[in-house]
């Protein structure tokens, strides 16, 4: 297969992938920085390049509600949002997962209000990390595009049937033109394939009527939640197979995490999203100086890849977790929380510390990551440090 080498913003790349997936229905409501993704997709519809029924709803709550209704018919459905839009649809985000509806949704990550801020951090998606969706996180435009192709296979897989969130950083990825390789339409379609409407239950099957979303009380709710837990816990096997297939097809390797120069690393930084790219550059600089440092980038945050992370981080002396969101009054950011508890009880666990950074889109530059690595080196050398730290804030 010959891929096309193009220059696109993250939003354009995701819209292109979604066009190639030929969705039946797409409810949409504007919010920066997700807007341009929907503009681009609407252009594809207006030009007849894809036959999708767009539902131009009056709010994100209705966007997710309409997505639930449409997906329950068996249709292939996506919507997209950011920040306050995600917060507004939060109630229904849980319902989509509970109903096992394979909806795909880019969350173009942006800080939550208040104060209102349109720039990137991860508070929106992290606020919905426990809603039952599969979370893919992207470092750049290429990963955003590839994720927007793979998400359909994951969500609609008979062994998964769960909604998938594709997280990519607002502006940094969504609005930045990068070069990337995209699949020709026919090859993308061959990979994704048509939605198997008959495979699940359909609300439109009036000959076999079903009741969706009943009142579920003390006698059954717990069992239903348990089956939902099982579904997401069983998904890695299928996600892994889809990653493998796509890696072979595209020549780009995908896994639950990406390890960068971790082989002999004594210090490992954990990050997700575009910061991973900046971290790689700084890690190269320190490697030149002989510092044994590497990066673990989390690609799939839900289901949380405990085993691979234990393996990847188990060899390190010190782990510095970067959290681009905050849990007020909690013990560190959500990524730190999970990493620390995943490593607890393993043999010789590394020292693990947290750095909250980049809130409200505060630029995370090379100097900041240098300062982080300097602190990690000091810890490796035996210095005491706080569990939870801030990076790049004026104190």
């Amino acid at each position, binding site marked *: 297969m010959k891929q096309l080498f193009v220059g696109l913003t993250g939003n354009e790349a995701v819209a292109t992938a979604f066009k190639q997936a030929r969705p*039946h229905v797409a409810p949409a409501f504007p919010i920066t920085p997700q807007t341009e993704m929907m503009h681009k997709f609407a252009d594809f519809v207006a030009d007849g390049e894809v036959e999708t029924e767009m539902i131009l*709803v009056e709010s994100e709550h209705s966007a997710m509600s*309409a*997505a*639930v*209704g449409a997906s329950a018919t*068996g249709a292939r459905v996506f919507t997209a949002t950011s920040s306050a839009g995600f917060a507004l649809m939060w109630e229904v985000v849980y319902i989509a997962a509970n109903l096992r509806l394979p909806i795909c949704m880019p969350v173009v990550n942006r800080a939550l209000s208040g104060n209102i801020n349109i720039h990137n951090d991860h508070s929106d998606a992290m606020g919905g990390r426990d809603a039952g969706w599969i979370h893919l996180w992207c470092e750049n435009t290429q990963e955003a595009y590839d994720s927007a192709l793979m998400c359909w296979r994951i969500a609609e897989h008979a062994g998964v049937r769960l909604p998938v969130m594709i997280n990519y950083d607002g502006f940094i990825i969504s609005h930045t033109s990068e070069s990337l390789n995209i699949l020709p339409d026919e090859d993308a379609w061959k990979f994704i394939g048509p939605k198997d409407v008959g495979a699940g239950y359909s609300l439109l099957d009036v000959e076999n009527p079903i009741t969706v979303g*009943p009142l579920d009380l003390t006698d059954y709710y717990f069992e239903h939640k348990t089956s939902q837990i099982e579904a997401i816990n069983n998904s890695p096997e299928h996600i892994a197979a889809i990653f493998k297939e796509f890696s072979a097809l595209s020549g780009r390797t995908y896994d639950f995490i990406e390890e960068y120069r971790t082989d002999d690393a004594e210090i490992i930084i954990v990050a997700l999203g575009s910061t991973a790219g900046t971290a790689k550059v700084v890690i190269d600089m320190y490697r030149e100086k002989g510092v044994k440092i590497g990066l673990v980038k989390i690609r799939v945050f839900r289901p949380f890849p405990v085993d691979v992370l234990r393996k990847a981080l188990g060899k390190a002396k010190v782990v510095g977790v970067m959290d681009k969101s905050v849990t007020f009054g909690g013990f560190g950011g959500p990524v730190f929380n999970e990493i620390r508890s995943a490593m607890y009880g393993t043999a010789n666990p590394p020292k693990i510390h947290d750095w909250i950074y980049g809130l409200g889109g505060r630029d995370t530059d090379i100097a900041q990551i240098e300062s982080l690595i300097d602190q990690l080196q000091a810890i490796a050398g035996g210095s005491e440090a706080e569990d939870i730290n801030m990076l790049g804030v004026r104190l």
Partner: protein
Amino acid sequence: MANLQTLSKCEDLLTGGHRACAGCTGSNILRQIMLTAGPDTVVGGATGCMEVVTTIFPYTAWKTPFIHSAFENCAATISGVETGFRALKQAGQLPVEREKMNFIAFGGDGGTYDIGLQSLSGAMERGHNMLYVCYDNEAYMNTGIQRSGATPFGAHTSTAPAGKVKQGKEQHRKDLTKIMVAHNIPFVATATPFHWKDLAAKVEKALAADGPAFLNILMPCTVGWGFDPAIGMELCKQAVEANFWPLFEVENGHYKMSKKPKEDRTPIVEWLKPQVRFKHLFKPGNEAILEEIQRWVDDEFTKVQTLCELG
């Protein structure tokens, strides 16, 4: 046009055995509408009494497909189902071949006048082929009889109770039916389950309309209103005769009375009296409230009548 003979031969699409209170008029509304709509219908329910009493897992009273998602989003949810139908039909991927299907959303007054108004307004404005039915029992019944935007002036509810210094709700209900007319949709009407023939005819028109339709249906609730479970239907009849709930329809913007109003309308106190929620209004000192209710009923009725005369 529906008659008893034909309706009695239609399959009941809402089974008995649901958990509605004895004397609840809500299940009558659902049953009657479904008799007219028939089996090629997908139903949506907003959180509220009717959803709760018909779908307690592992049972369901629905013999047609049914979806409940949340309280405030029934219109948006059904708009998604309707769009899914059109898209799958276009793609030749319908699970069962149908040229046309009905999409009906049911919401209580809380789910419609209040928390679901935005979702409803959006769905109507977008022009989906769907019927939205508000079953209006004039309070949030499912959560314990709290006041809603549909609760009448003076009614006792658990959040606006009658006490030593307050006499129940201090506002009149909002005119949701007219709000829906203002959406310029093809069909809007009021109804009650007592006037079954009128209701069936309106459901037929609503489902035949090219675009969205809205029905506002008065639904006496024995628990919330406090009346003898035997008289729910009687209260529907009286509400119309007292001009409290005039029966009218608005087709493509044109108002029409569905039933010629009686020359001498029943005084509103006759309708209020059998209901415990209005009991305090009959205490000495509350005469002005009763007068205000009567004034409001007469004013509102005159407005509707004038619109109907204009046609």
